[in-house]
Structures are given as structure tokens and as C-alpha cells.
């Protein structure tokens, strides 16, 4: 009796593992197919430009405003702590390093996942539910090349730019609060920042992070949309899954990338 119960549990565990691996493999094959068939999206670049508009330009306001506020809060909080040690001139270093290395790519990626990723999933899922994708196939148009690939490349191109804008507007917010409001010396704020922030080690690693997040988020978004069950419920579930999975993926990837980039590099 007990053995049968245990057997059922083990079978369920095995089922979960194999279906997860199957889904991962399907998603990887989907990505490979997508990249191989993105010739149309890159040749007819206008398709991709329209998607950059939806994923990038329409995310601008939320990215700039939240970057500004994150920078202002960092500046306020950092000043409180730094002035205890008489190191309030290092405020610029604190704001710039935390934004460029971590918060810029990660928070911009999270916002991008919820703002643009969910929209991509819902759009592709609805196209599938209303049989637009099937209709394209009937007309011998590959829906992956025509619909999915432009959205993928649009997201991948937009994400690093959004992360850079987030960092820049955050540093500006930190400057506003730190220098204009609190009164940290402007020269020390910028010169200490410039002395401490390294181009290849900090800025470029941040850009690499944002590119990786961009690929991960849009990959998850287009895959969930393409794979969604063609019902109203299926599309809504897929949209939720996109936001949850890509947020977790960003945080996990961020940990791995940080461990690779910034450990041992502090020499």
C-alpha cells in the first residue's frame, strides 16, 4: 500500500521533470528555428522597426521615470549611511556603481518583462487563438519568420538601450538629490564617480547583462505566446507565466552573471 503510494509520488515527480525538460528542449529548438528564420525580419527591417516602437519607445516613459526615482532614493539612502562615516563625497560612486552594475539592467529588465514581454505574449497568443497564424501558414507565410522574429529582434535591440537610459536617468536623479538638494560638492560627486567606475569592468558588463536579459525576456515572451493554448484562458495563463518566468530568469541570470563578472575581478 505504502509502496504503491510512493510509486505514484515518484511517477509524478518523474513526469514533472520530463515534461520540464521536454518544454526546455522545445523552447530551445524554437529559439534556434527563430534565429535561423529571422532573415525576413532583418531584410524587411521595417517589420522590426515597428516592434522596436512597441517594445522600446512605448516603454520609455516608465523606464525614465522609474530610473529617476530609483536614483533619487539611492541618493537619499546612500547619503544617510555615508555621512555617518564622513564619506558623503562618495555618493556619486555609490549611485553610479549600483545603477550601472545591478539596478540598471535588472530593474529595467523587470519593467521590460512586465511592460513589453506580457504584451508580446498576449499579442502572439491572441493571433494564435483567432487562427491568424494558421491562416498565414495556409498562405505559405511562415508565422515564425513574419510575426515572431520581428518581435524577438525588436525586444533584443530595445532592451540594452532601455537599460542604459535607466542608468543614465538614475544617475541624473542621484545628482539632483545629492548635489542640488542635499548639497554634496558637485566636483567630488562627478570626479570620484569617474575615478571609481571602470569602462570595461562596469559599463560594458552592465551592457552585456542587459543584452542577456533582453534575449531571455523576449525569448520567453514569444515562446509562451506561440505555445499558448488557443483559448482565452490559455492566453491569459501564458501572459502571467511570461511575467513570472522572465522575472525569475532575470534574477537567476543576474546572480550567475554577477558571480562570473565581479568575483576575482576586484583585484
Amino acid at each position: 500500500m505504502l509502496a504503491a503510494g510512493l510509486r505514484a509520488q515518484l511517477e509524478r515527480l518523474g513526469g514533472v521533470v520530463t515534461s520540464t525538460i521536454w518544454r526546455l528542449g522545445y523552447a530551445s529548438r524554437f529559439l534556434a528555428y527563430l534565429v535561423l528564420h529571422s532573415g525576413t525580419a532583418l531584410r524587411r527591417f521595417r517589420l522590426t522597426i515597428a516592434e522596436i516602437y512597441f517594445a522600446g519607445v512605448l516603454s520609455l516613459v516608465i523606464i525614465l521615470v522609474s530610473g529617476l526615482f530609483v536614483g533619487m532614493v539611492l541618493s537619499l539612502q546612500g547619503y544617510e549611511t555615508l555621512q555617518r562615516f564622513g564619506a558623503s563625497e562618495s555618493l556619486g560612486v555609490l549611485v553610479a556603481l549600483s545603477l550601472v552594475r545591478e539596478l540598471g539592467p535588472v530593474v529595467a529588465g523587470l519593467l521590460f518583462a512586465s511592460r513589453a514581454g506580457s504584451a508580446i505574449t498576449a499579442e502572439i497568443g491572441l493571433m494564435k487563438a483567432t487562427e491568424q497564424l494558421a491562416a498565414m501558414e495556409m498562405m505559405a507565410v511562415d508565422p515564425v519568420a513574419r510575426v515572431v522574429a520581428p518581435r524577438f529582434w525588436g525586444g533584443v535591440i530595445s532592451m540594452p538601450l532601455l537599460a542604459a537610459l535607466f542608468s543614465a536617468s538614475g544617475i541624473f536623479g542621484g545628482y539632483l538629490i545629492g548635489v542640488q538638494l542635499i548639497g554634496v560638492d558637485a566636483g567630488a560627486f562627478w570626479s570620484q564617480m569617474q575615478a571609481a567606475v571602470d569602462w570595461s569592468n562596469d559599463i560594458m558588463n552592465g551592457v552585456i547583462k542587459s543584452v542577456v536579459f533582453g534575449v531571455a525576456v523576449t525569448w520567453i515572451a514569444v515562446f509562451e505566446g506561440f505555445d499558448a493554448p488557443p483559448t482565452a484562458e490559455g492566453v491569459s495563463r501564458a501572459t502571467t507565466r511570461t511575467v513570472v518566468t522572465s522575472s525569475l530568469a532575470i534574477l537567476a541570470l543576474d546572480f550567475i552573471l554577477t558571480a562570473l563578472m565581479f568575483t576575482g575581478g576586484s583585484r
Partner: protein
Amino acid sequence: MNRSTIDLWVGIFVAIGLAALLFLSLKVANLASFSSAQSYKVEAKFANIGGLKVRGPVKSAGVVVGRVADIRFDNHSFEAIVTMNLESDFRFPKDTTAKILTSGILGEQYVGLEAGGDATMLKDGDRLRLTQSAVVLENLISQFLFNKAAEGKDEKK
């Protein structure tokens, strides 16, 4: 929304995105000042380098004249060999002294160069003969305590 409006907005978006990257590179990381100016390598041996790090500044009279390029350990003399990249604009005499100094009490450590009086100038690959190691706080304190203890003994006699 028609095509040209979308194109315009995407153009604006890409332009300000690249401008933000440029701002981060130039204004925040100050890439411009680390231009690949001509430099020459100079080595120096130190008994103790303290907390000196690669890419740390090399200063003379408080002005940054180069960067620490490499720090190695010499297995024969049991000393640290510090390689420095000095900018070619700055020439130093052959008998220049190199010291490991600290900026402020808790600041980072840097190599300070003090020019000598020799007529010949340093060339690429030269080694500085006169060096002074980093001050290790523990050694300083123990020296001070020993001196104090010795003074106290003298006074009792």
C-alpha cells in the same frame, strides 16, 4: 499611426539610447581620460606593497602620471615586483624614488614617485633602484609600543 511617425520615434529612441550609453562611457566612466596615450613600462621592487592594486594610480607631486600595470611576486628575493605604465609625456630621472603611499587615512594606496637629480632619464623596461615599502599599521604600532616600554624602563632606573 503612420510609418514616418513610427520611424521618427524609433529614431529618437535609438538616438537617446546611444546618447545614454555615451554619457555613461564618457561622463561616468571617464573613458576619455584613459586614452591609449603612449606609455612606457618601469619596474620597481618593494619589500611590502600593502594594499596596492593593479590599475592603481602612480602619482608624482600629487598628479597622476601613470597606472600600476602588474604586480608579481619574485621567488628569489621574496619581494613584490610592481610594473607601472607611465605616460610618455612625463620623463623621470634614473634615480627616482618610488614609495607606496596612502591617500587619506582610509584611502586607496598608490605609488608615489619622487624625482632625483640624475641627468639620464628612465627608459622603457628600466628598474627603479630606490624604493620604500608601504607602512604597515601593525608594525608601526608595535614599534611605538616597544619604544614606549623601553623609555619606561629607563625612567625607573
